[in-house]
């Protein structure tokens, strides 16, 4: 197996056993980037020199017997994470030459854990999008079939992991931006509980919904990664002091006797192939000892409407600082989607409309939160498909924003409720990946990893990669 296709777990072991060095591991990823990025467009910036320098340092530390959780592991960061001294664009022309003077908290944590950052990945500009096409640096392509989208907005991050350009990548999930691309590229995507991981230094999209997560090849890697990134941050007032458990600990415990709910609203109107794939996943979960229970989340249908009021409102305020006075280019450089959201949000927050839109949306948001709270009285976790449709072709939805917005129909409610969601591969439809998501109560990441790991070890879809190993 090529080094760049290893899981973090295996790579850590190999580094420890001196089977290869971090420089070799990082070089393998950089080679893959050099070979594939021209087609896939997954990276906006590749940090070749810096990465090799960091890898060299990691090798010294490994020789010293230092034991850091990600020492020498090549990872990629979505280009919406501030990286000190490295251009951070949010895939928008507005920031095409902006170099942050500071690291996002998550970036510092990853660096302190010994991770090597190979580059900054492409995304839908400002994280506005579900397909990866809305980038001022060009669309990202799905390595499973380059005619198809990889899903967005964390498109480049998902592609970097599935194609072996990095062993893991950071992402953000405001309405599904990690889970959707993970499911379209056969990898694992975690959207943690709101506040579980610090947002400091990540260019804000919609502050009350933004969650900082990551992509990995396996659930075990995802747990390992969260061990590094989770926790209270004195620079983010929305991170509670909730204890961070060792997320790896309960992975082997299995799911025998767990009650897993299937919300009927989540399977109404989904494509038949998706439904069939989901049914076989349920069978597997049942076989593994889980009790599958039909439940209802009655306010699900309002999710997209609520989301498309709250999210643009916050976007309109968060993008106000990009006036081109102190840094970046001026407002003329904003793309159409950002302009659309700024206008929508400005409208719904205006005097005379606030009560009818924003305030009402906040009330419905509370109902959606209550839906989940009620459900978790009956079940331990919830399972559903990630996308209501199979992955679509590049260009198919770009001229129909509403259709594009609806691709998040199964993921947004999780963001509105602030609960965690874990997207895990569930097979292939006509050679293209599909995924399912596990949702749990706030701060139940440990449980979700346990379910995901058990499912994954049984199905082993993760062993399939778009390129030969």
């Amino acid at each position, binding site marked *: 197996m090529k080094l760049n296709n290893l899981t973090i777990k295996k790579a850590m072991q190999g580094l420890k056993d001196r089977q290869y060095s971090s420089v070799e591991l990082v070089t393998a990823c950089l080679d893959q980037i050099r070979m594939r990025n021209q087609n896939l467009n997954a990276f906006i910036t590749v940090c070749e020199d810096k990465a090799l320098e960091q890898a060299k340092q990691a090798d010294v530390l490994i020789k010293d017997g230092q034991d850091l959780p990600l020492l020498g592991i090549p990872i990629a960061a979505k280009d919406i994470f501030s990286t000190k001294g490295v251009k951070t664009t949010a895939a928008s022309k507005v920031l095409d030459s902006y170099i942050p003077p500071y690291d996002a908290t998550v970036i510092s944590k990853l660096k302190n854990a010994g991770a090597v950052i190979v580059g900054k990945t492409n995304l839908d500009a400002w994280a506005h999008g579900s397909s990866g096409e809305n980038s001022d640096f060009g669309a990202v392509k799905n390595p499973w079939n380059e005619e198809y989208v990889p899903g967005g907005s964390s498109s480049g991050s998902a592609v970097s992991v599935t194609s072996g350009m990095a062993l893991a990548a950071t992402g953000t999930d405001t309405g599904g931006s990690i889970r959707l691309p993970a499911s379209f590229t056969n990898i694992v995507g975690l959207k943690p509980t709101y506040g579980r991981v610090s947002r400091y230094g990540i260019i804000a999209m919609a502050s009350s919904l933004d969650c900082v997560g990551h992509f990995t090849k396996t659930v075990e890697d995802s747990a390992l990664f969260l061990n590094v990134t989770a926790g209270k941050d*004195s620079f983010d007032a929305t991170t509670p002091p909730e204890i961070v458990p060792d997320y790896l600990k309960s992975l082997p415990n299995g799911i025998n006797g767990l009650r897993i709910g299937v919300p009927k609203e989540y399977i109404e109107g989904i494509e038949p192939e998706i439904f069939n794939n989901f049914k076989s996943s349920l069978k597997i979960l049942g076989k593994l000892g889980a009790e599958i229970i039909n439940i209802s989340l009655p306010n699900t249908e309002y999710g997209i409407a609520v989301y498309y009021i709250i999210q643009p409102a916050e976007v309109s305020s968060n993008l106000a600082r990009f006036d081109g*006075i*102190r840094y970046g280019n001026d407002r003329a450089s904003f793309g159409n989607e950002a302009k659309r959201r700024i206008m929508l949000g400005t409208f719904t927050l205006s005097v005379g409309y606030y009560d009818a839109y924003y305030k009402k949306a906040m009330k419905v948001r509370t109902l959606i939160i209550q839906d989940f709270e009620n459900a978790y009285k009956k079940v331990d976790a919830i399972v559903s498909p990630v996308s209501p449709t199979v992955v679509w072709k590049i260009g198919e939805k770009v001229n129909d924003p509403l259709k594009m917005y609806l691709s998040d129909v199964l993921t947004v409610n999780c963001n509105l409720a602030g609960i965690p969601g874990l997207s895990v591969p569930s097979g292939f439809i006509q050679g293209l990946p599909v995924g399912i998501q596990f949702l749990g109560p706030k701060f139940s990441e440990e449980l979700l990893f346990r379910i995901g790991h058990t499912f994954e070890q049984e199905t082993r879809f993760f062993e399939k990669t778009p390129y030969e190993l």
Partner: protein
Amino acid sequence: MKKRLMNYKVIIGLEVHVELKTQSKMFCGCLTDYFGQKPNSHTCPVCLGLPGALPVPNQQAIEWCVQIGLALNCQIPLFAKFDRKNYFYPDLSKGYQISQYDEPFCLGGHIQIKGKKFGITRVHMEEDTGKLTHEGGSSLIDFNRSGVPLVEIVTEPDFDNAKDVKAYLQKLQQIVRYLGVSDADMEKGQMRLEPNISITLNSNSKILPKYKVEVKNINSFGFVEKAIDFEIKRQLEILEKGDTPKQETRGWDEEKNGTVSQRVKEEANDYRYFPEPDIPPIRWTAKQIEILKSQIPELPDEKLTRFEKEFSLSMYDAEILVKDDQQANYFEQAVKDASGKVTPKQIANYIINKKISIDEILPAKLIEDILTANKTEEININELRAIVQKVLQDNPKVTAEFKNGKENVIQFAIGQVMYIIKKKIDVNIVRKLILEELK
């Protein structure tokens, strides 16, 4: 046709901004001592509004805001939140100001000044902006002030004259200084005043006029009085012509000694307020508010009453002493140090009349000084009389002016006598002898 208006009423409400003297800024760790510092030397990603930066509220500032509210007899709701006030201005780094809209920290208080009661609508917390300067065709922004904690105190439109406004502002300044939460130095911009002034032609109506004029750029109590009086006169002249003054923002112009129009408000600004998602709402317990209340020191009004009673001081003396809490504390310490050897009244007189610099003389030393000053040397009465006679002889003017009723001339004679003697003797004896000789 100009007609003389008889039945009018002036209506004034005030918005006052007070900068808190916390060590660090409202939402980041930068220091707040920006005054006179090199531009942009007190900044970080948060107060510069860089992409990705987040605000973390300063607990101290919030507690001080609540204490200001408590000192102004406000209700403290157990639930409060921050909101975003969205507007564009180059000195506003985020494109919005973090402020409080419908659920501020303090609501519905009042302040009592010389028997009159003025309503306090609300007291809320927000952040200061950067500062723009325009030089040689270009504009410069200094973000040192960006994010400094500001408390805004809004009154009801309960004032009808400039004197009451000034008295209120002085009282407010005194209170925040007593609380130790702000130096409220107007020249340094630590206290900023914005009166809203309008005039109704129906003094019995409770309905406010359809317009109001906000006056900015006032940096002293003297100017606030002048600005209000100027506005009243200006608005009355317009009303006398049968017109309605424009709803606008005017600025005090020191050189013109009047207000000048800055911005005419066609309609109200739409700030698109919404709850600040980066800061969780604040939930207090009654106990926490109780503790904050208990930490409030004795305020000027209570101290004044106590000083009058406890030290048998006149209201006049007590008022001067409590004007500044450090002076009041100094006085109390001196009374303690005197252990009865000098009366509080004597101490008060000494501090007030000699304009004692309390930073330079310790209270104990002050008592010694008073005792020394009180000590007089003995002098032979005949010797003294001879000197008095000599002074009157050498200065015939004294006798002449005294006969013309200018009794003050005696002071001059006393001075001359004291000068010749060069001893500390009882002035009253000298005065008595001079009067005897003059008659």
